[in-house]
């Protein structure tokens, strides 16, 4: 069943939903930007372990005051803390952990997602733009599940959920869930299911999205 709420989700509500959906005990990588906010809504009971691509499992909250240590940073180069049971490892081991499918969930931002789950989030393809990829392509295809958080529409009102990507690909067929202010989507069995809509009816949503949608 596709649920409905009358208001759009705030960014915090999106992060809260993602956090609630992460299975207990999962190993998770949260991308730079909106996904980082998810960590604020994980509960101790969930026992989630955070991975950062620059070589650490068991990452704790952002460091403040005297806890700030320039040798202890996250992928966004922000000082963080370590939790009991943490471990450090070098970059090849860290990306082996990602690429080898050992992380349960990776949460990323996106420019566009195709109905096949192709992800674009690394490069606008704009003339003269300097490309930078970082760990985006590794994150996209490495985890058991890749979830995306993004606004559903561009400023011009165009859907970022598309038939086929117009932006350069980050990873093919990798996205299984999309959290937006207006709806949450699940991509499985070559179908785009709408789990919930927010401030918009399923029908209105369907009229604004250029891909076939199914009720969950």
């Amino acid at each position, binding site marked *: 069943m596709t649920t409905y709420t009358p208001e759009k989700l705030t960014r915090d509500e999106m992060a809260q939903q993602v956090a609630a959906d992460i299975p*207990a*005990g*999962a*190993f998770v990588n949260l991308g730079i930007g909106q996904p980082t906010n998810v960590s604020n809504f994980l509960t101790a009971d969930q*026992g989630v*372990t955070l*991975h950062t691509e620059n070589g*650490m*499992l*068991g990452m704790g909250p952002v460091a403040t005051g005297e806890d700030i240590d320039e040798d202890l940073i996250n992928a966004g180069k922000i000082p963080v803390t*370590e939790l*009991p*049971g*943490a*471990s*450090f*490892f070098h970059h090849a081991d860290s990306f*082996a*952990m*990602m*690429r*080898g*499918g*050992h*992380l349960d969930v990776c949460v990323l931002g996106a420019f566009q997602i195709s109905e096949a789950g192709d992800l674009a989030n690394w490069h606008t393809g704009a003339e003269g733009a300097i490309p930078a990829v970082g760990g985006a392509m590794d994150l996209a295809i*490495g985890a058991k599940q890749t979830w995306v958080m993004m606004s559903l529409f561009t400023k011009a009102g165009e859907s970022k959920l598309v038939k086929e990507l117009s932006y350069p690909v980050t990873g093919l067929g990798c996205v299984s869930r999309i959290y937006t202010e207006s709806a949450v989507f699940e991509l499985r069995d070559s179908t785009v299911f709408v789990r919930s809509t927010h401030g918009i009816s399923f029908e209105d949503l369907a009229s604004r999205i250029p891909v076939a949608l199914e009720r969950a």
Partner: protein
Amino acid sequence: MAPRIATSAADAVAQITDGSTVLIGGFGNAGQPMELIDALMQCGATDLTVVNNNAGQADAGLALLIKERRVKKIICSFPRQSDSWHFDEAYRAGEIELELVPQGNLAERIRAAGAGIGGFFTPTGYGTLLAEGKETRIIDGRGYVLESPIHADFALIKALRADTHGNLVYRKTARNFGPIMATAAAQAIVQVDEVVPVGGIDPENVITPGIYVDTVVALGGSN
């Protein structure tokens, strides 16, 4: 997910079913998970594919699994030893399949599985019998053989100590295959001397991060 703390070696291996591929750590006796292998013997799983550096020695552990014809195939680097009589007999009887792999390629293939690498070009074995039938390539004037990852259902590993998150440290040359095997198996089952509370292992000194460890059993130990 924090690993399950099993109550006994038998409990730890109970999930291993017929037809499984099982990585078994150790080089000689160092790092051999003897109690887990004995428990595997008792649990009855058969039709196994086993990956180990050797093919069993004397009348213990892996050698007994082979004696009882529970191993249909072994992938190893050094099956022939002075006391590998059970393997020798099974092999000569045509009752065990042998895939012989140079030791470094064996280690790298196990690592590749854990690291999501689809294949790699190695110079080891190029131009030898063990490269026959394999793709080869000359890169910058040197010959290489394409080798593929070895994925497994289970790994049986011996470590020195685990914390309750499954972080592991090993002891001296008993480390050998343990860290890479833990990454290459869907389920890594680890016997340790002791399990310590979380925080009991310095994060700088963790050799196998807990993400790779599924089941831990504490058996005490001589060291």
